[in-house]
């Protein structure tokens, strides 16, 4: 699968803030996803600093549920793994997605799909 490497270019010039740190802000809910789009073999995720009540961050269970769901695990599987009910895990994920600015399951998969195990 190396043939797509030609589409992937070198990383952007060094930023003052490492990408991993901003990623932590995004997944922690302190930056919100505004938009995402694909171009030239890369996915671009536009994020904006969260304001107001959304700066609180996610709970531990929300993060776990979000990670498992974005990795493709079914809601009922996530619920079983975390030992909570289906409606609880659905609510966790819904609120976590709202925190991160993700508006749909498509957004969730697009932004976090490559990041989860």
């Amino acid at each position, binding site marked *: 699968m190396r*043939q797509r490497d030609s*589409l992937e270019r070198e*990383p*952007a010039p060094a930023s003052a803030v*490492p*990408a*991993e740190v*901003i990623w*932590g802000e995004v997944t922690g809910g302190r930056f919100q996803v505004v938009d995402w789009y694909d171009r030239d073999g890369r996915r671009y995720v536009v994020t904006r600093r969260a304001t107001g009540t959304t700066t609180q961050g996610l709970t531990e269970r929300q993060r776990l549920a979000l990670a498992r769901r974005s990795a493709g695990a079914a809601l009922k599987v996530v619920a079983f793994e975390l030992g909570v009910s289906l409606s609880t895990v659905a609510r966790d994920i819904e609120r976590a997605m709202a925190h991160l600015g993700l508006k749909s399951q498509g957004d969730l998969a697009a932004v976090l799909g490559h*990041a989860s195990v």
Partner: protein
Amino acid sequence: MPASDDGGGAASVLLRPPPGLAVEQGLEGDDEVILSFPLGTGARSHAPLTGAEEAVLADLLLGYSNAEISERRRVSVRTVANQLAALFRKLGVHSRLEAARIAAERMSQKQAGGVRGVAHLDSSVAQVSGRSDNMSENVTLFRPVDRMG
């Protein structure tokens, strides 16, 4: 990878940055930041294509619909759909158009003297189109009409 993402704990490891993550735009003090990462690094399987998948890909490149492929291959439409789904997963794409683009890239690289593992695909296309010297030849032979017999 920094394990000390504040407030994350064990769960933050699960949402680790995708490989190749970079900051595109937005520096210190900026409220808007654009991140980017290469597509298809996570979801793409490295498994080789099966013979059936390569055959379906060759048909896809010729512009056949699932129903037409099913007729040509003497398999059900559901089988074609399943084989295409497996193919898309392996190529790391989400549509037949993307799959066609990847396959076309492979072939052009093969012709430029490069990549292993595409000989089968190459020959099956060449067999249908009669020639394999460039893509425009294949395009002119889009949807051949010889399949009704």
